[in-house]
């Protein structure tokens, strides 16, 4: 039956420029461009998902994808979007699915925080002339350290827990092989090595060819336990237990069988073509004690040589949960805010569950400090980091480092069309279709990721210098370097921020 859904975009082709080369036809996996028998190219608007692939590749700039939101009679309640969802479900009877992070216009607190800079009294530092330390150690720090003097030299007498050293406080967040293509994994792995940071396998296991990047890899152990075996744990620099994901707190995952090809099957250790289902909870974790058991099982399995991280989504009780995790023996807590991306999530959950990462960082950092256990864990924040300013603000709020997911994908070509769950990603990112996957050359992916993080790191160094700091260490949790603007006193309270214009205390 004909759909009631209305096309949302309009494809405009400038016929004076179009040379009928059919590049767009070949590039659109959604088949929105078609060529007729005469070799003339035309389009079908309703198929377009606005991924902009054709626009990017059209050699004559003949194409424009325009917003064509259908006009529905003014109604704040029954918006075009609400109606679209209803039509869709009336047609399919299914759960609405989507990809990427929460797109709703909830407040973005980053845009309500301003950074400080030095003037006169505390001179700023020029990072081009003076050393600027972005190096960060992630892992549990001792409550106190004991130093001995040997031959007039200080020697550390305390046994430190294993640490991850990152050259810049930016890591790549968990994106599983299966949800993303092999090329993405390779790009992330290679960029991490170049950058001196880490990428995260997500719950899809570590493809055999990427074992060589183990020293720059964080491997995940999730509820589905896909691809987990001793070699996998041994290969990694750190292990992350995945409890939750910001885009879909409280629910599990589902990788459809079509995405389970030979390589995914081998890596995940499941049959080709079978659905990979991650249950909502870990069936062996129903308390902090259970979690602690898993943490220590993993530590035992790897002889206490690797930090163990626990990843949760930012939910209302995040601070208390984080405290429990710290006490359960984790070395790192990764918190994923509700703008965190995903390969596939029910739309209603993505758009309505969880809290912003900004509030979560502040709440967790405050709570751990209040309990005097902040040193026991490092906090990695995740969920919608868009630029270096977001990163440095997160650190000032109290995070040790951040995870980039969506930004990394965008660097590789993603245009956030949110069609990840279809497996037809035109950019070769969220797909297992070999024809589409090739579109991401790992050489190009690695280079673009490297460039992005290098650029951000330069900017962070610049901003740090401006604040008169020469090490990222000195900024962590230093909320005095932030001021809020346009926030309610309640929000300011949670964030622990003073209003812009109030003097340094």
């Amino acid at each position, binding site marked *: 039956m004909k759909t009631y859904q209305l096309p949302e975009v309009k494809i405009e082709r400038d016929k004076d420029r179009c040379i009928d*080369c059919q*590049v767009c036809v*070949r590039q659109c996996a959604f088949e929105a461009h078609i060529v007729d028998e005469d070799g003339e190219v035309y389009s079908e608007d309703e198929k377009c998902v606005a991924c902009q692939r054709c626009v*990017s590749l059209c050699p*004559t700039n003949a194409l424009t994808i325009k917003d064509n939101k259908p006009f529905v009679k003014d109604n704040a309640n029954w918006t075009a979007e609400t109606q679209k969802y209803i039509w869709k479900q009336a047609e399919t009877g299914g759960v609405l699915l989507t990809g990427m992070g929460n797109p709703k216009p909830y407040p973005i607190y980053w845009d309500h925080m301003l950074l400080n800079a030095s003037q006169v009294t505390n001179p700023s530092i020029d990072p081009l002339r003076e050393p600027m330390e972005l190096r960060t150690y992630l892992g549990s720090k001792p409550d106190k350290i004991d130093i001995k003097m040997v031959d007039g030299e200080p020697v550390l007498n305390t046994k430190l827990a294993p640490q991850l050293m990152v050259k810049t406080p930016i890591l790549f967040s968990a994106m599983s092989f299966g949800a993303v293509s092999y090329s993405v994994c390779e790009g992330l792995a290679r960029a991490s090595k170049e950058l001196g940071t880490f990428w995260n396998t997500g719950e899809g296991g570590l493809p055999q060819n990427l074992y060589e990047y183990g020293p720059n890899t964080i491997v995940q152990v999730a509820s589905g336990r896909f691809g987990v075996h001793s070699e996998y744990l041994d290969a990694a620099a750190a292990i992350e237990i995945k409890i939750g994901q910001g885009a879909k707190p409280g629910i599990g995952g589902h990788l459809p069988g079509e995405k389970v090809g030979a390589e995914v099957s081998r890596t995940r250790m499941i049959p080709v073509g079978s659905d990979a289902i991650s249950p909502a909870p870990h069936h062996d974790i129903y308390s902090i004690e259970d979690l602690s058991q898993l943490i220590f099982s993993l530590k035992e399995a790897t002889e206490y040589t690797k930090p163990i991280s626990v990843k949760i989504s930012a939910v209302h009780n995040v601070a208390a949960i984080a405290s429990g995790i710290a006490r359960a023996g984790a070395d790192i807590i990764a918190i994923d805010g509700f703008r965190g991306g995903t390969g596939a999530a029910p739309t209603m959950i993505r758009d309505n569950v969880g809290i912003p990462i900004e509030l979560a960082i502040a709440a967790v950092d405050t709570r751990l400090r209040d309990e005097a256990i902040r040193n026991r864990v490092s906090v990695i924040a995740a969920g919608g980091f868009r630029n270096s300013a977001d990163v440095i603000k997160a650190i000032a709020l109290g995070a040790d480092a951040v995870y980039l997911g969506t930004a990394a994908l965008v660097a590789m070509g993603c245009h956030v069309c949110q069609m990840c769950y279809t497996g037809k990603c035109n950019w070769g990112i969220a797909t297992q279709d070999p024809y589409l996957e*090739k579109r991401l050359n790992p050489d*190009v992916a690695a280079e673009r990721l490297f460039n992005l993080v290098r650029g951000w790191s330069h900017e962070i160094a610049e901003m740090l210098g401006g604040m008169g700091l020469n090490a990222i260490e000195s900024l962590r949790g230093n909320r005095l370097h932030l001021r809020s603007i346009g926030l309610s006193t309640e929000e300011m309270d949670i964030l622990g921020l003073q209003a812009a214009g109030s003097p340094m205390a």
Partner: protein
Amino acid sequence: MKRVYTKEEACIGCRLCEVHCLTEHSRSKNIIKAHKKEFPRALSRVLVEELRPVSFAVQCRHCDEPVCVEACITGAITKDESGKVVHDEEKCVGCWTCVLVCPHGAPRRDLERKKVAKCDLCPDRETPACVEMCPNRALVYEER
């Protein structure tokens, strides 16, 4: 010598190499004019072969012992000092002997001009057009 090599695992079958090769070998070198206004139209010297998901671009390999040079009945194809196998359109009469002998199927027939069109490694550019314009670095220009 530097040659163009295809990396089939990165070729996405977009055929932009063909578009830009044609443009580079047109009179105007303007992509739109070259495709819409110039008659006879220039011909791309690179050909993309495809059987999804596999695709790759093929162009003259500039062979070490080029059989086309040996076979060309007019002397239009020669190997220059740099190793490039160059084709002189002036001299070519379209006898298609090179089409018949090239083991790579590289020379293309330009039926309008009755001449052969063959990769010349873009003498007016530092990097051949196909290599520079390939959106996925599936073509490299290097010494091997």
